[in-house]
């Protein structure tokens, strides 16, 4: 049996764990499910095309040529922001390499001491004092790291994201530290574009109706009806979303923290990241430094593959270091398996009982954001994401059951019960 070793150079993105798709040789990074993103693009481009085709010629002549010019500028800005949000790395934290994972394991075992057999290991939490408040850092079983403050694991993309806001299907990516400002500029500019098109649609219809009558106007420019419909529904959701994020930015909070009520409530810690000044908070979020990606996507690495002449090829030895490490480090972590298996049976009925509570618990709280959006947005959102992840006021239960639920390799992504995972925010029908 002769083995042939083939070494080839691959880009690092080809071997990255997680469920992202990469394009343009690693320059573009998105989530796997891109259908809704294509819908967003189609709605924006389609509605603007109708506007340029039907309204702009008339308005340029009868009102001002600056009307279509400004519309074009705004349109390009919206598309640029959308593509930037969708294609950039949201702030993914690379998974721990084997040595780091082992080092952390040893620290945890040293801190926990000897756990008697059959007893549940204590939850893996590190307490950190930030601005005189105690913040708990949770351990991510998938990435094998203690998550930095404000980071969270997105189960749709299967990555820990720094300053995780939410996973947005409309942009087909997570929204995190690196692309939050682009996301905000996208919603803001889209609100302006929607209002602009809606206003000038009405102006156009009124101006034309004065000359030719209302019905004739609609016959001449049928696109107007479609645009008004799309804009009307988009307006409520997108403007509402922009308002909600403006509120979050002024408090220096993320959507994830707001949903979980991390900084609200009597017994909770006050937000340690807020500067207590609205302008300072806005300044930091929108005008802060632009963080470079720590995920080296386009770096080169060696891949060794060995093929035996006799039978099926062996898996490449270095091609997937992370998956190998999960196998090699697992035997060291004996404490994990026993609690997981016993607690999985406990976790299942707990998940069912929490679901009605989640929907009741979060909807009144959502009202403080803009209500029209929430009425549309919150109900599908609760249904889509699995309930344990949305826990608001159940911190002791969350801590007890967080450890087994984070280690569910067999559960499909959308149902994965990561307690700190993404919030899939539906904006309602996009523009």
């Amino acid at each position, binding site marked *: 049996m002769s083995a042939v070793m083939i070494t080839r150079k691959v880009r690092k993105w080809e071997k990255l764990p997680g469920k992202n798709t990469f394009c343009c040789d690693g320059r573009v990074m998105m989530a796997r499910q891109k259908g809704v993103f294509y819908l967003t693009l189609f709605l924006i481009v389609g509605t603007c095309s109708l506007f340029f085709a039907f309204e702009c010629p008339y308005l340029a002549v009868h009102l001002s040529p600056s009307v279509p010019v400004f519309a074009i500028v705004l349109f390009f800005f919206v598309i640029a922001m959308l593509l930037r949000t969708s294609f950039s790395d949201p702030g993914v934290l690379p998974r721990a390499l084997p040595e780091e994972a082992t080092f952390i394991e040893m620290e945890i075992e040293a801190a926990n001491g000897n756990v008697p057999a059959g007893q549940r290991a204590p939850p893996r939490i590190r307490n950190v004092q930030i601005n005189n408040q105690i913040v708990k850092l949770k351990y991510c079983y998938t990435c094998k790291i203690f998550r*930095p403050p404000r980071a969270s694991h997105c189960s749709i993309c299967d990555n820990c994201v720094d300053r995780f806001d939410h996973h947005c299907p409309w942009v087909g990516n997570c929204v995190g530290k690196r692309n939050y400002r682009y996301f905000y500029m996208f919603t803001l500019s889209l609100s302006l574009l929607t209002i602009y098109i809606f206003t000038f649609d009405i102006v156009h219809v009124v101006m034309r109706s004065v000359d030719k009558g209302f019905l004739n106007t609609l016959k001449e420019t049928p696109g107007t009806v479609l645009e008004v419909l799309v804009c009307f529904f988009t307006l409520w959701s997108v403007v509402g979303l922009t308002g909600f994020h403006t509120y979050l930015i002024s408090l220096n909070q993320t959507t994830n923290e707001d949903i979980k009520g991390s900084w609200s409530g009597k017994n909770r810690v006050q937000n340690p990241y807020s500067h207590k000044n609205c302008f300072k908070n806005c300044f930091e979020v929108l*005008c802060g430094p632009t963080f470079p990606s720590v995920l080296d996507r386009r770096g080169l690495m060696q891949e060794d593959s060995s093929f035996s002449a006799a039978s099926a090829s062996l898996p490449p030895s270095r091609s997937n270091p992370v998956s190998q490490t999960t196998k090699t480090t697992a035997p060291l972590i004996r404490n994990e398996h026993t609690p997981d298996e016993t607690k999985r049976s406990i976790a299942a009925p707990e998940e069912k009982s929490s679901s009605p509570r989640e929907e009741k618990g979060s909807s009144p709280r959502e009202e403080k954001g803009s209500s029209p959006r929430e009425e549309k947005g919150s109900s599908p959102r609760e249904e889509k994401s699995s309930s344990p992840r949305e826990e608001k006021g159940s911190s002791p239960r969350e801590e007890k059951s967080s450890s087994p639920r984070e280690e569910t390799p067999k559960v499909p992504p959308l149902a994965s019960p990561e307690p700190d995972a993404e919030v899939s925010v539906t904006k309602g029908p996009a523009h």
Partner: protein
Amino acid sequence: MAREFHNLQELRHNASLVTKVFVQRDYTEGTVCRFQAKFPSELDHRIERTLLEETVKTLNSYYVEAEKIGGQSYLEGCLACATAYIVFLCMETRYEKVLKKISGYIHEQNEKIYAPRGLLLTDPVERGMRVLEISVFEDRGSSSSSPSSSMSSAGSSAR
């Protein structure tokens, strides 16, 4: 403590890895990038405390400079926003410039201070800015016993 001097290239190619020590992030001032100044006990006999503390302090000051929110970052943000962030395709951001400086600093520190003592610093940016990894290589001056031989075989195979 007799020590054989290593140089940087020799470390990377020939010396065998004994263990890796990780200096963790210090989150007491929030989410800014900052490393703990706590001296790891595993390095007690390998390097003077003050040298490592000095390195960590300098690195922390570089990160503070990169993440400073002030006039320059505001201007950079406004200019970029006005051009729909297309300017970032051509221009290097301030953070990236500082990261390059940091990488040069770490290389220089490795050459002058750490490699002669059989240690190697890894730029935190290669570890997701989570840890400052210090690779400990065999100290040829001392006796050949390594504290964790299983670690060393795992470490050297991974390397």
